[in-house]
């Protein structure tokens, strides 16, 4: 009996999971029901597991440590081993296998963002600190998101923090791959990345995406490497007075907690303290913020899969509330949230910014 199967037996069907789930009610996805079916060894319909966004709310709130998120990953795993994967997810997996990123972009070009920068960034092996700045696949290839590593690199440089990159030796962290249930591929990515870290004696990793931070911190085993999100380093620099924002950013900014940074890893205050340090910025909060932040529906493989049927996307709900509260800018600290929120936001004339983009505007 697998660990997950044993845990499912302790489920008391309280329904807190379904109550927290961002997909509940509007889609056929019902976490409590899935746990019930697993208790009785009943089959779960093939399409169902793919709705999960991996926000982790169910696991966090379960009073019995059933870890429904993991049960869902197990269900997906079984489908993956059977070859029963939605086409678009299949493509993302196959791309990751060949090019080490789900977008299928050339691995050889993964480091190009750092080569085109106005500052010179060394390979991590050439640094004293062996501090690695790790990019998310989407930040390495998408022009819109490429500004994030570019900005953070400049900000860290201004703050005098030494760091290096891996360029094309970096492979996808595998966070989404693991959540999609392709355990074998996740293991391969993890092994390759760990071997690379060891080869260069990496001692610290600053992740540019909460997804990467999550898996490196919690799923890569005991690396003996400190893993943090860039907002933690930057917030520290600001509080130490090493970075001094100047000028003015006279906007009302509402902050959206990304699931993988906030509820899953407890990093709520650092991005906020960065925003609060920006002169002229007025911070607003969503009704659902911090631990109860509403998942943007970008995670869990949802970047690569859209279920049939229409229902109001959480990103639209978030944008509407932001506008209702009078926000000029919707800020967040995760590239997936940026991508998912920007679509509906642009339509309604609301700007979406990653925290580093805002900070960059007020650093000389």
């Amino acid at each position, binding site marked *: 009996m697998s660990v997950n199967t044993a845990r499912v037996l302790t489920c008391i069907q309280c329904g807190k999971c379904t109550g927290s789930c961002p997909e509940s009610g509007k889609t056929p996805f019902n976490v409590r029901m899935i746990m019930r079916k697993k208790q009785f060894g009943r089959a779960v319909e093939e399409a169902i597991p793919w709705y999960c966004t991996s926000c982790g709310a169910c696991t966090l709130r379960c009073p019995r440590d059933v870890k429904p998120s993991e049960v869902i990953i197990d269900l997906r795993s079984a489908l*993956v081993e059977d*070859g029963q994967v939605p086409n678009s997810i299949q493509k993302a997996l*196959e791309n990751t*296998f060949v090019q080490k990123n789900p977008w299928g972009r050339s691995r*050889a070009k993964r480091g190009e963002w750092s080569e085109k920068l106005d500052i010179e960034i060394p390979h991590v092996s050439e640094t004293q600190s062996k501090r690695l700045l790790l990019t998310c696949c989407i930040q390495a290839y998408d022009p819109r998101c490429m500004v994030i590593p570019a900005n953070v690199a400049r900000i860290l440089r201004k703050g005098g923090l030494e760091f290096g990159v891996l360029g094309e030796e970096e492979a996808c962290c595998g966070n989404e791959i693991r959540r999609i249930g*392709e*355990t*074998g591929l996740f*293991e*391969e990515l993890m092994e390759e990345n760990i071997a690379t870290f060891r080869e260069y004696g990496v001692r610290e990793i600053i992740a540019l995406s909460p997804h990467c931070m999550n898996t490196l911190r919690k799923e890569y085993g005991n690396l003996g490497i400190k893993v943090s999100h860039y907002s933690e380093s930057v917030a520290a620099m600001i509080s130490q007075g090493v970075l001094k924002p100047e000028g003015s950013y006279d906007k009302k900014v509402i902050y959206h907690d990304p699931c993988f940074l906030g509820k899953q890893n407890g990093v709520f205050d650092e991005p906020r303290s960065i925003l609060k340090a920006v002169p002229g910025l007025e911070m607003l909060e969503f009704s659902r913020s911090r631990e109860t932040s509403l998942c943007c529906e970008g995670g869990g493989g949802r970047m690569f899969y859209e279920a049939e049927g229409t229902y109001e996307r959480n990103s639209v709900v978030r944008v509407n509330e932001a506008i209702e509260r009078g926000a000029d800018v919707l800020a967040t600290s995760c590239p997936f949230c940026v991508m998912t929120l920007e679509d509906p936001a642009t339509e309604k004339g609301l700007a979406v910014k990653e925290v580093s983009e805002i900070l960059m505007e007020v650093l000389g």
Partner: protein
Amino acid sequence: MNILVFTKRVPATQEEEIRVIDDGKKVDLSKVPFKLNDWDNYAVEEAVRIAEKAGGSVAAVSMGDAESDEVLRRAIAMGASDGFLIEAATERQDPNGRATLALNFLRKQALPFDAIFTGVQAEDDQFGSMGGILAAKLGLPFASMVIGIDTFEKDHVIVRRELEGGLQERVKVSLPCVLAIQSGINEPRYVSIMGIRKASKVERKVFKAADFQEGAENMIEVERWTYPPTRGGATMIQGDADNICKELLGILKEKGVFQ
């Protein structure tokens, strides 16, 4: 139905910038990842489905370097029961050479088959000829651009060939035969990494290409590798609405999608 499928390990060149080096003598593939030829993926999937339905088995054959074992393992993970590697250190840039190598192997090993599948073409050399040449040398009936296999009986198959403009033709082909399978004939199953690992337990028989070289010399040669004429960034179409429309329709005509 016993089906032999030829599978090729090819460089994944779609996303890469490919450079010519050594004054045009070589193409630099050192940084390019490799994978199973897309068309062969469809061919293996189709063969496995037929074997699952009608009974029989699928064997995958690959002609290439030692790394080509990867594509055999993949085929086995998809449902093939055997894998044969004809190992050669250097790649042949000639469909005749490859077909003759295959022909000699098939004759010497006397592998039984009802049908041989290949992909319509290989992503790297784009010749699209190996299957047809092999069929002719074996004296077997052949059909390429197979977009659907409608029926398979003991002595014949009925297939649909993809023509141009959405048109297809239905043809009856006697068995044994050679079919070149077109992409889109099916939706290949996903093969997980764990599945490929499990496939490693099935023995893949390795042969040396040198043992099958009779008459397999290259019949064509490459003088030099070079670049096709380049196009710059987006060509902006300017002018007033009438002019823009005219130019646009002109482009559509040139591309053959509009009369």
